[in-house]
């Protein structure tokens, strides 16, 4: 693994989750312990489950996997008492195009995530967790296997964790290539050894998740945010961001920028400042055309819509999403027909086929976009693309159908001129 995935710290960043990145052997227990490691777990051990959950609620932390659901509320849905064992499942199936942050958190600071998992385990009274890592991240799976082995040998997993008497087992589990398995219920089916197909909700995983037992599912970054929340208090974390959008998050900037990278920015950070200052602006002084704000599922923003703070509520107000933190920058030369086609090829490939609107919709959208790109576009195709996409919205078990439809609707609406320019047959 020769590439160093973290950047030199920038004064524009607020390094909370990534503060240990760059320390020598930052992935080891000793370095973690020497840098505030496991203080939060010991503190949480003295708290009641309700106090832990209240602290997480006060932090205004929202799920970093993409949906942005308030984490404290999600934690409160897991029943306190249950005749069945309760499980914690960590979603490390990072596969939303544009997103590459969980890699860093596992590679450079795995104990921060493990400590977050253990604090959740205290709050849930859970004693078993599964870390579901996408198959393509095999080097990270092997890395996590080594980290977990070290944690067991040093008494930070297994029986009597850090001398507290608390018991927790953690298993790293490999996926095998399926975007759909990032959806939490499909992930659970995959964990159970099946095809990753989304389940009907309710029941939600909090009540009937892995093996029909109560299960708490969160993203790697969400768990990684927990130790600092418990150590410094929920309100301190919340104060880093904006109201209802607590803390910092790792923003993965890619595409047409001079300094692509993963940067830790507080919620509410100005989008244009992220593009032009943090990521060094657009190569060749070209103009900004559009931004994918948080992974390929998010509706695109035109350049004139980008003068906004990056928080969940503002993005929702402008009709998009903050998503998984994968921000893709497009300059003025980008061909939006090709861009829309590439997104749709992805969703058509990854649709699990369970829901017909998604399976058929993505395939037909791909065919129309392909025909358009090949020069056979028809005038009414633009309306047809919009109509087909809108027909998929809300008509599928999981969000993949919406995820395919939403960017397409936004591209067709906002960049219709790009499509018209490509028309060769005027019907």
């Amino acid at each position: 693994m020769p590439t160093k995935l973290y950047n030199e710290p920038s004064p524009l960043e607020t390094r909370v989750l990534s503060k240990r990145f760059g320390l020598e052997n930052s992935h080891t227990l000793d370095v973690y312990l020497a840098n505030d490691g496991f203080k939060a777990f010991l503190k949480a051990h003295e708290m009641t489950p309700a106090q832990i959950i209240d602290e997480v609620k006060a932090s205004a932390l929202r799920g970093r996997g993409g949906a942005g659901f308030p984490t404290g509320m999600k934690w409160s849905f897991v029943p306190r008492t249950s005749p069945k064992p309760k499980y914690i499942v960590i979603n490390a199936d990072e596969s939303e195009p544009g997103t590459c942050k969980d890699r860093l958190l596992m590679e450079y600071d795995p104990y921060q995530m493990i400590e977050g998992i253990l604090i959740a385990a205290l709050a849930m009274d859970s004693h078993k967790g599964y870390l579901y890592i996408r198959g393509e991240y095999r080097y990270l799976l092997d890395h996590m296997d080594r980290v977990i082995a070290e944690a067991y040998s040093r008494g930070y997993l297994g029986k009597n964790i850090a001398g507290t008497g608390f018991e927790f087992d953690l298993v790293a589990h490999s996926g095998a290539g399926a975007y759909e398995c990032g959806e939490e219920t499909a992930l659970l089916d995959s964990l159970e050894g099946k095809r990753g197909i989304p389940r009907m909700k309710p029941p939600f995983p909090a009540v009937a998740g892995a093996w029909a037992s109560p299960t708490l599912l969160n993203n790697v970054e969400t768990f990684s945010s927990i130790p600092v929340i418990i150590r410094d208090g929920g309100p301190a974390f919340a104060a880093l961001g904006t109201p209802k959008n607590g803390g910092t998050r790792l923003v993965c900037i890619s595409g047409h920028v001079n300094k692509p990278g993963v940067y830790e920015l507080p919620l509410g950070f100005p989008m244009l400042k992220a593009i032009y200052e943090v990521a060094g602006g657009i190569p060749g002084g070209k103009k900004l055309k559009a931004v994918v704000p948080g992974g390929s599922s998010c509706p695109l923003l035109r350049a004139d819509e980008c003068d906004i703070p990056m928080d969940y509520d503002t993005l929702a107000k402008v009709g998009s999403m903050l998503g998984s933190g994968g921000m893709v920058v497009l300059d003025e030369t980008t061909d939006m027909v090709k861009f829309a086609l590439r997104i749709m090829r992805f969703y058509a490939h990854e649709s699990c086929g369970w829901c017909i609107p998604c399976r058929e919709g993505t395939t037909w959208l791909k065919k129309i976009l392909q025909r358009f790109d090949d020069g056979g576009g028809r005038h009414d195709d633009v309306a047809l693309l919009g109509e087909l996409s809108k027909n998929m919205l809300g008509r599928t078990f999981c969000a993949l159908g919406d995820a395919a439809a939403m960017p397409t609707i936004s591209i067709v609406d906002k960049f219709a001129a790009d499509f018209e320019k490509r028309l060769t047959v005027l019907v």
Partner: protein
Amino acid sequence: MLASYPEGRKRSAVVPMLIYAQDETGAVTPELIDEVAKRCEVAPLQVDEVVGYYSMLHRKPQGKYHVQVCTNISCMLVGGTELYEHAKNKLGIGHKQVTSDGQFSLEEVECMGACSWAPAVEINYDFHHHVTPEKLDQLIEAVRKR
């Protein structure tokens, strides 16, 4: 591996067991499916349908070096598509094909989580970032000599 899952839930090991086994055998064969089914205490058909679902599981052997080029959005914007075309020409094979000597196979893959270091290539399980056509040639020549 089977002991990692709750009692009576050996089926949970199906996906990881298949991928680890495939690393050893080169492909998911009918014999492998039967063996995994036996160990995980499920019907072979239940393993078979899993093989058909996951894109990293394959029934035919790949090349000794499986070259995966990402052309998804972040890579596409900075030359991923051209890199994939270059790989096709360099290796003389197309998507999911194997060279006649069995050394290389090629796959155009979806996002592999290397967006900020695009364009990205994975050869077997090794990530390569900021790959240019020249760098890809070097990578291919380097493994060829191994």
